[in-house]
């Protein structure tokens, strides 16, 4: 079955006023951290100040004497003896990625395995300030223990065993089962290539830096607990919280107001910053019979959880002078922590990015993951940073090696599972899908918008009057069209004909309220203004899949379409029971619904407004006091796709949609500074739902990607293993001054996986962008720098080596 193709949209593809715009602009939008309930207590947990250390002795007497301290819960407190938290491993999604090993994590251990691990003691007080003051008054005698920062060091035989008891699961105690994938005969292909060379690659450990810090407020309503949380997974948090508290899940309600930046990191429910602080707030609230807010300050947020892990490795490339890539061999070492998701697998390290997008026939990938003394993490736009980076670097390397235009190298190597692009689109044709060459279209659009042909030049060949080197860069990959997991969407028809989209809420800032309302209006056939998505808490009967996340628009659009079809049928059924002359002798299939009016397809001018039908959905039930109650039509449907990106009727399909990006930079040879003067993002989103929002996601993602390419990284003191820059003064994210112009172009191939072929945008741009800076800098200065971030010192050293 093919996707339902449609391009005569009434509501999709238009810009509407953001439904969340007024609240967010005025500042009246409420976030979890804004919620402080009356008579609330505050709780703060200690973090380990060393890379690996054990508490020998703790003295809390001074803290106890501080006015306003209500309770101190120590690691040796009998109230929490043997208390465990749910582990990373028994989360269904994690189990899908790794192995389903049951293991619970100590709630408040006396040993910390990384700088920033939550442990030791919890201070409960009347204010946040008192918590901080009392925490500073806690005196601890530490026993410092061996640690290891580099994943390659961690898997050596003489490395300190960092996670005792894990030997059955982790090879030598530190190494996580990595992965190896291969296709074709790499060694043979290297021999047959015109050139074979190896490049080092590195990506830094970065932080999510969501604007709103992780905070949770809990309040008990009898035997039930209400949780106000900054989380991307309210339903999962209710699952974990129930398990940790020994409750049934139906006793936990997780309310997520607006969220101040989630980006996937706040989907890390199994981390202490989600389930741990929720448990603390709930436990304290219960014991003291007062609401409790558990908070984490920015420094502790930086130290207790990273997002992208540190990776270094090398890529061996074999290619011909015409730019044809014969073989790629990738070896990565990636750093992980216990209690974090192991980001390993074919997609994460690059193998999938080659097989999904290229005709390269010989690929080998080795990914070595090891536990180190760096904090655990989930991901931040997105888990495939490393994989996409490796594809980008290979394209760039081949182009520069042979003096080719990188856009030509991309088109030459575009394909699917070792086959060329014709093979790819023949598959599309067989399934009745559009066959437009997405990459070619994106490149043509981007080159024109950017002025590529007039700006591209040989490496290091253009020096500007201001003394800086000029460079341009290009990058490409597939567009994001993941569609994992199950979502359930409810649609409720109100008495006035308006419709509510029903489902849990976790606003990610992607304008989901507006976008999903547009999709629903289109699918149902009523005006956009008659649809709203106000969403519910974790007890909402319908569970949308991360509204706005990786799979948001693809999953939700299909779910909404299915529910809309049911709603239309229900409306038509009801309309036919009314014996209206407009529908005389009609059956359901004869009717249509458009712009809020129901009519016979054969007589479109004789129409009945949906409100006239909705008002009669149930007979008036006249109450004794004379008020009439009416019912509503409520329907729901579930979109289930077992894995990856699926056809509507099941099964997986290739990624047909692509994206590419163009950047222009100036590099100062004296200071090593990079000035980003222009960036053009071109993304095939399949179908544009909300144009401004799509563009916003594109350049927003670009800003995030540029940050991790040239300024963001954790700086460690390698002697002590502690983080030196856990704040926004020293950890540099992109600001208004870091670019000049940013533009986004949108392609519509109708082939990105969702309803009508729509797809996601935002996360993908952030993921692709880092590699583009290496490409542009090489074009500017003529030297390859593939270990990011590209800080000024690296530029200076590269220019020095060039001489």
């Amino acid at each position, binding site marked *: 079955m093919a996707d339902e193709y449609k391009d005569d949209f009434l509501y999709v593809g238009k810009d509407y006023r953001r439904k*969340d715009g007024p609240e967010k602009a005025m500042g009246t939008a409420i976030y979890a951290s804004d919620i402080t309930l009356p008579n609330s207590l505050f709780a703060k947990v200690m973090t380990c100040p060393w890379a690996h250390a054990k508490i020998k002795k703790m003295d809390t007497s001074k803290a106890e004497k501080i006015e306003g301290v209500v309770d101190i819960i120590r690691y040796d407190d009998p109230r929490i003896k043997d208390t465990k938290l749910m582990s990373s491993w028994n989360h269904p999604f994690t189990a899908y990625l790794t192995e389903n090993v049951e293991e619970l994590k100590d709630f408040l251990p006396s040993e910390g395995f990384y700088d920033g691990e939550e442990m030791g003691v919890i201070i409960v007080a009347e204010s946040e300030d008192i918590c901080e003051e009392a925490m500073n008054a806690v005196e601890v005698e530490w026993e410092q223990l061996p640690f290891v920062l580099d994943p390659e060091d961690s898997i050596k035989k003489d490395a300190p065993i960092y996670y005792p008891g894990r030997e059955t699961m982790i090879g030598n105690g530190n190494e996580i089962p990595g992965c190896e994938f291969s296709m074709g005969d790499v060694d043979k292909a290297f021999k047959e290539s015109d050139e074979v060379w190896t490049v080092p690659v590195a990506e830094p450990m970065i932080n999510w830096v969501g*604007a709103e810090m992780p905070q949770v407020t809990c309040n008990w309503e009898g035997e039930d607990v209400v949780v106000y949380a900054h989380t991307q997974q309210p339903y999962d948090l209710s699952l974990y919280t129930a398990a940790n508290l020994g409750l049934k899940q139906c006793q936990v309600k997780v309310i997520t107001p607006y969220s*101040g930046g989630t980006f996937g990191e706040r989907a890390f429910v199994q981390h202490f910053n989600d389930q741990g602080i929720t448990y603390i707030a709930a436990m304290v609230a219960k014991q003291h019979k007062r609401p409790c807010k558990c908070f984490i300050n920015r420094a502790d947020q930086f130290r207790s959880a990273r997002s992208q892990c540190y990776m270094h490795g090398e890529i061996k490339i074999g290619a011909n002078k015409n730019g044809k890539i014969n073989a790629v061999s990738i070896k990565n070492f990636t750093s992980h922590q216990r209690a974090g998701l192991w980001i390993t697998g074919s997609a994460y390290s690059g193998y999938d990015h080659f097989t999904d997008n290229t005709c390269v026939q010989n690929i080998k990938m080795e990914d070595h993951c090891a536990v180190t003394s760096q904090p655990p993490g989930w991901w931040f736009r997105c888990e495939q940073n490393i994989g996409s980076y490796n594809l980008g670097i290979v394209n760039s390397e081949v182009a520069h090696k042979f003096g080719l235009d990188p856009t030509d190298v991309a088109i030459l190597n575009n394909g699917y599972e070792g086959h060329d692009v014709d093979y790819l689109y023949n598959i599309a044709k067989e399934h009745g899908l559009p066959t437009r060459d997405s990459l070619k279209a994106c490149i043509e659009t981007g080159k024109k918008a950017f002025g590529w042909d007039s700006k591209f030049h040989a490496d290091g060949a253009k020096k500007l009057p201001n003394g800086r080197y000029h460079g341009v860069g290009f990058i490409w990959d597939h567009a994001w069209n993941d569609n994992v997991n199950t979502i359930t969407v409810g649609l409720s028809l109100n008495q006035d004909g308006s419709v509510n989209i029903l489902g849990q809420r976790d606003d990610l800032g992607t304008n989901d309220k507006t976008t999903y309302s547009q999709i629903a209006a289109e699918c149902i056939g009523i005006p956009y203004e008659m649809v709203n998505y106000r969403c519910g808490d974790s007890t909402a009967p319908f569970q949308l899949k991360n509204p706005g996340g990786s799979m948001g628009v693809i999953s939700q659009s299909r779910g909404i379409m299915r529910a809309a079809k049911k709603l239309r049928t229900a409306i038509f059924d009801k309309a036919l029971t009314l014996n209206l002359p407009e529908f005389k002798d009609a059956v359901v299939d004869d009717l249509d619904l458009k712009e809020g009016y129901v009519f016979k397809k054969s007589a479109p001018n004789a129409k009945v407004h949906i409100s006239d039908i909705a008002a009669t959905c149930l007979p008036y039930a006249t109450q004794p006091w004379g008020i009439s109650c009416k019912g509503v039509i409520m329907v729901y449907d579930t979109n289930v796709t077992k894995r990856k990106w699926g056809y509507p009727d099941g099964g997986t399909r290739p990624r047909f949609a692509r994206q590419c990006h163009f950047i222009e930079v100036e590099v100062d040879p004296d200071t090593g500074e990079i000035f980003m003067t222009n960036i053009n993002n071109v993304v095939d989103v399949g179908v544009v739902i909300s144009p401004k929002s799509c563009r916003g996601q594109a350049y927003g993602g670009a800003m995030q990607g540029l940050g991790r390419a040239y300024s963001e990284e954790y700086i460690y003191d390698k002697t002590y293993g502690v983080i030196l820059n856990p704040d926004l003064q020293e950890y540099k994210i992109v*600001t*208004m001054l870091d670019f000049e112009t940013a533009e986004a172009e949108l392609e519509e191939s109708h082939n990105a996986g969702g309803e009508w072929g729509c797809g996601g945008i935002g996360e993908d741009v952030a993921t692709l962008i880092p590699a583009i800076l290496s490409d542009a800098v090489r074009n500017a200065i003529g030297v390859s720098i593939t270990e990011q971030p590209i800080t000024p010192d690296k530029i200076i050293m590269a220019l020095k080596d060039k001489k």
Partner: protein
Amino acid sequence: MKDKDEEKAVLSRRQFLKDAGIVLGTSAVGSAALLSACGTNEITKTDTVTKTSTVTKNVTTTVVEKETLPLPIETENGRLLISFTVNGKKFDATVEPRETLHHLLHEQLGFKSVKTFCSRGGCGSCSVLLDGRPVLSCMTFASSVGGKDIWTSDGIGKEMPELIEAYIDNECMQCGYCTPGFIVTAAALLKRNGNPSTDEIREALAGNLCRCGTYPVHIKAVHEAASAMGGK
């Protein structure tokens, strides 16, 4: 129904715009970029807490006498009693000497538009106008705002609907958490300079961080707001 004092305290739009251009002086703490929103021609001389002279390029000289800037009154439990206005409404509050203006506004008084992103003066999300000048409320002692006039984004929004509409129309918000801070800084810029250049906008807003990366559209929105306000 509003009582007389409250009615008196609610500033007219015209009065807001006028006053916001006058810097009555405070020991403002903040990033260079935030301070730059006040303009490079501004000279502030603080003699004491109670007497301040200010010269801006738009306003000649304003001298505020002692009686209009009362010192905090220490109460029995060591807290300090202060009086001030927020969005044109008068408030009396007791604060701890160490309490920040952010805590006072967000936790005590419920002005939830005043956010905290970094807590250390590095992000601009907690920005408010203090006597017309953008300051970082997380780096300002609450005890220092006695007698002063504070505006938060929700108050500014009512007085400058053109700015709010331009922000909505250009979708300057994604998660929206940092947006109120941008509004405050942009408002300060527009009051000082009714027709700012792109570079001036960029410079003024450089101290406001946005992790969603909405930066490009803020420039457009401020230009549009300036145009809609006709250089007021």
